[in-house]
């Protein structure tokens, strides 16, 4: 009997010790996480890269499963898109030149240019699939915390994916627009009515992100495109975020009267993400 009691006591002690250990681990992790997470990813970079290589192999094999005719048709279609984009780029550069000349005549300072770096998605979290992911570029490539991460939509329009949340030597964590901790300003429609994404009284749901602090005096049109404003230092302006899907006034009894909130359907599709583009101000990169 005393033996049984001591055995029970020992088991209970073990369970208690384990629980204390888990709580300690959670507390310590919370404190050291910003550095430790990226340090681990740097140290285990080749290990983590293996998992992505396997995914890419599957993806490439899926592409090869198309017939030659189908691949040729897709190539032809892509060439047409490329030609159109080349013409658009030429027109845009002509407009830029004209804009620069006009600014010079009027004595207005020219806007800063942006440099773009491509990166590959290395690791996706299955539980926080929409909120964050890891890319294969880090401090060694000149990436800094807060840099904007962009993607190109199927119709060739640049769209905002998120910003760099934390940076390691070889890889970085990206906070997407779905992440409730990433708040930024947005311009809605042609009038560019200002609102704040992931802010206000609403919660995002079902693949939609909230936009708050919209002026209820100028009701935005449902379905209007939502763009970045350029107010944030590291996010270029005029990048598409998504479309306004719903506007609803927050109950004035519980929130600031005169302010409305709504929901945005982001253009960024998290399921077809393989490469992203990181935007950096030219000044920061040290280039002329």
């Amino acid at each position, binding site marked *: 009997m005393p033996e049984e009691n001591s055995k029970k006591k020992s088991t209970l002690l*073990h369970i208690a010790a*384990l629980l204390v*250990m*888990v709580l300690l*681990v*959670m507390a310590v*992790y*919370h404190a050291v*996480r910003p550095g*430790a*997470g*990226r340090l*681990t*990813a740097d140290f*285990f970079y080749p*290990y*983590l890269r*293996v*998992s*992505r290589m*396997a*995914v890419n192999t599957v993806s490439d094999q899926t592409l090869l499963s198309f017939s030659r005719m189908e691949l040729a048709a897709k190539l032809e279609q892509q060439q047409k898109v490329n030609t159109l984009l080349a013409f658009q780029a030429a027109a845009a550069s002509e407009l830029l030149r004209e804009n620069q000349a006009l600014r010079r005549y009027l004595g207005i300072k020219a806007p800063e240019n942006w440099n773009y770096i491509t990166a590959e998605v290395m*690791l*996706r*979290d*299955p*539980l*926080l*699939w929409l909120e*964050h992911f*890891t890319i294969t570029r880090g401090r060694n490539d000149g990436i800094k915390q807060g840099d904007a991460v962009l993607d190109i939509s199927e119709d060739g329009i640049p769209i905002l994916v998120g910003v760099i*949340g*934390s940076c390691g030597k070889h890889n970085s*964590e990206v906070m997407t627009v779905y992440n*409730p*901790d990433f708040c930024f300003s947005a311009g809605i429609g042609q009038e560019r009515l200002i609102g704040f994404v992931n802010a206000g009284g609403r*919660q995002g749901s079902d693949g939609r992100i909230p936009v708050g602090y919209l002026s209820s005096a100028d009701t935005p049109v449902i379905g209007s495109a939502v763009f970045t404003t350029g107010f944030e230092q590291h996010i270029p302006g005029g990048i598409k975020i998504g479309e306004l899907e719903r506007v609803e006034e927050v109950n004035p009894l519980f929130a600031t009267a005169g302010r409305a909130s709504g929901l945005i359907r982001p253009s960024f599709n998290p*399921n077809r993400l393989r490469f992203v583009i990181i935007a950096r101000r030219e000044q920061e990169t040290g280039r002329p």
Partner: protein
Amino acid sequence: MKIFFLVTTLLAALLADLLIGNFGFSVSLTTGTLLYFCGSFGSKHTLLAAVAAGVFLDMCYARPEAFSAAVLLTATAAGMYFIPAREYRNSLIRSLPVGAAAEGVFVLANAAAISCIWGKTGYPSGIPAHLMTAMLFGMLCFPGLTILLDTIAATLNLPRYLVSAPEDILPQNNPLDDVPVETASRRRRRK
């Protein structure tokens, strides 16, 4: 050798979890591996390994909070409850509920943790659908994992999970134990 086997296998299982996670599926081969170790080597080291594996997973994913240690620990503890006694571990059918229970608790614990921390489920397709898929995965995966790891353990001369012969169940007296070992020094002395 035991530690080497445990660490290597656990790292391989974690890599497989990361690989499956990249496709958007949240299932855990690590839980199955931990349960195998629990059945073969005992529970104390396994539970510590569960905490370490959880922290490693959170660090790799750069998650804002470390909840995987608690989740893996809960799932392993739930699976341990279903592990049959050593003398009954002679059929793979008996390991079906072990894997199913562990994967089921893994999904529920993850959903509970994410719900507590971020106020959402973490499973866009819904918890019941994912729970069923994960349990089915665990049911099929754990016996497969047992066969694979048992083969490696037998090669490395380590304790196995399954007992396929009676001598594995009951410790028997080896008649050769009583025979004095003929060493070179003894042989010299006799001469």
